[in-house]
């Protein structure tokens, strides 16, 4: 070991500066890599990035669209963050999001035009959370009581939820399908009472609900007795068991909470900008983007909010790029690159790299300094 040039050792708690610096540098590094790809394929990276910033933040309309895109990402980000923090590998945000949308639209249509907004809105949003939690439970219950690997089950449930949504709209004459359109099937519009009011261009109050729900999650995990127990389980299931904490119930609780948050996102998306169970508007990979948000936020439930706005800005910039002849997929490539660098950056948060100690320093000098 003596002749090594560097020593890598685990560090205790990383400073907040480092924990801000690493994600910021991940984004910068991803932009550089993306820029190289763009340049190699004949685009001007500066022009592309300029266009992205402009379309995301350059106008009031841009800002409102960015926040619309950010709303579901805050919630799918929280969904991934709470689960990953407890080492519950819920990769099923996508499916839970869709199931939330199916439940929310279903309840909205079932309530019909008669229900006033103060009843319809809470019912629809809670239905979204319920849908997500129900869908998560299909993977959560076998995980907790049988030890089934949840990575694969939650993943497979994504595709089943997608197929179910397609079935409800394209494959059947379900109540979700608009009976008045016969040419190309689409979702039945939900009643106006179940739609979130808009206040700034197309931006609806869903953004405030999402932020409030993120704060609730932060409070539940960080400030309550239940959250304390859950965090112990996340740190070490063995010590939790020793302390008499019911580990299976805590894991089940976190799993369902994670599913509910992804479901809330689906509910808010249906009662907000989409207004129907519309496969083309809902199959956007928002559950997966939530994983990027959570990783870049260092699994911190409040940091998720600004990171979701950044990712929302990126998502929102895609269509604008098309107008200057740059592929919309530039955005998903950049998001993927950001995630890769954020993951690699975890190393620098968890470890310290230093030069090996030179010859022992005389103690006197140290005292004098």
């Amino acid at each position, binding site marked *: 070991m003596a002749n090594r040039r560097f020593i*890598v*050792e685990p560090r205790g708690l990383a400073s907040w500066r480092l924990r801000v610096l690493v994600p910021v540098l991940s984004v910068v590094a991803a932009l550089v890599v993306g820029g190289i*790809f763009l340049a190699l*394929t*004949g*685009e001007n990276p500066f022009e592309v990035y300029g266009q992205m910033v402009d379309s995301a933040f350059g106008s009031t309309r841009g800002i409102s669209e960015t926040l619309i895109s950010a709303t579901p990402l805050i919630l799918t980000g929280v969904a991934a963050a709470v689960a*990953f923090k407890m080492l519950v*590998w819920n*990769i099923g945000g996508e499916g839970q999001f869709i199931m939330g949308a199916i439940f929310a639209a279903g309840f909205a249509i079932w309530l019909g035009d008669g229900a006033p907004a103060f009843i319809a809105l809470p019912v629809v949003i809670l239905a979204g959370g319920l849908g997500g939690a129900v869908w998560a439970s*299909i993977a959560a219950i*076998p995980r907790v009581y*049988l*030890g*089934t*690997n949840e*990575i*694969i*089950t939650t*993943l*497979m*449930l994504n*595709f*089943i939820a997608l*197929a*179910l949504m*397609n*079935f409800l709209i*394209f*494959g*059947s004459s379900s109540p979700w399908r608009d009976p008045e359109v016969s040419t190309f099937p689409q979702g039945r519009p939900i009643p106006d009472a179940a739609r979130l009011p808009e206040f700034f261009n197309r931006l609806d109050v869903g953004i405030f609900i999402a932020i409030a729900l993120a704060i609730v999650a932060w409070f539940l995990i960080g400030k309550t007795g239940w959250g304390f127990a859950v965090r112990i389980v996340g740190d070490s299931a063995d010590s939790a068991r020793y302390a008499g904490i019911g580990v299976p119930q805590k894991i089940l609780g976190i799993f369902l909470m994670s599913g509910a948050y992804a479901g809330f996102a689906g509910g808010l998306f249906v009662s907000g900008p989409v207004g129907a169970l519309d496969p083309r508007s809902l199959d956007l990979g928002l559950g*997966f983007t939530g*994983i*990027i948000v959570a*990783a870049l936020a260092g699994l911190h439930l409040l940091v998720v909010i600004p990171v979701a706005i950044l990712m929302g800005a990126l998502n929102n910039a895609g269509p604008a790029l098309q107008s200057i002849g*740059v*592929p*919309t*997929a*530039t*955005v*998903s*490539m*950049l*998001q*993927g*690159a950001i*995630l*890769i660098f*954020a*993951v*690699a950056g*975890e*190393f620098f948060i*968890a470890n310290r790299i230093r030069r090996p100690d030179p010859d022992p320093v005389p103690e006197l000098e140290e005292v004098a300094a």
Partner: protein
Amino acid sequence: MNESVLMLTVVAAIGLGTPLIFATIGEIITERAGILNLGVQGMMLVGAVAGFWATFTTESLALGVIVAVAAGAAFSVIHAFTSITLRVSQIVSGLALTIFGIGLASFLGQVGSDPLVGNPSKKVFEPILTGGIADWPIVGPLIFGHDILVYVSWLVAFGASYYLFHTRMGLSLRAVGEDPASSESAGVNVSRVRYIHVIVGGALAGLGGAYFSLALVPTWQDDPIGAAGWIAIALVILASWRPGRAVFAAYLFGAAERIQFTLQTLGEPWSSIPSTLLAMLPFVLAIIAMIVLTSGKRARYLGAPAALGIPYFREQR
């Protein structure tokens, strides 16, 4: 007899299962070294786009396959670096690889003044060994008349099986996946073994991706491989980390994907089952298999590498 519904389904299942064989065996080799790589979907997509591009530019299928294999291998190095050298969470790193791969493949298909997207491949893998022998009852269509990559997939399965269980390197590989610390004491370079086998896994995933873009759906589109990469990860468990079993597991899922066409040919009432519902079948099958196989005590007999997913810290020994 060779035209019976069952036969046609089985033959189609062989085609649909072939990319799954490549990807599954690749992931088996990676996981045998103790590294879980959830980036299969991303590596397959990168292989698919790279292979398609190479064949599109050079009109050579051989070059397409070589480029796809190289691209998959190169792309997997990212995961090898983050999970072996940086020792970050293999789960998150693999997911990152998939998400990046999806974006990158889609970007490469769309970019440029004359993008690939929407273009048919200039060359497509055609069946070989056709003619008389392929008409033999039952055996004919099962063994003959496939494209060359189907035979390559059988060779890969055989070769991987032999390598894992009958060679010295295969033994070191399995030892590293079971107990890296002891392997290190026995003189095995754990990091090197892990790097090599993550890259081999990436190469095979790239080949699996190219099978989609050059044989199964030879027109470039944003998402040409469906959920094949994810299915492959499930198949590893279903095959209990054995390449031979992976072949049959892959064909089973190939058949499940084929089921909607099969039911259509059977007529009423089968043909009236909506295809959107039948699309769920492979995934439902995977979940049931997962719950049955990986639950409780049974999981122990499956043969998962003991060190799978656990970062190896040499210094902390």
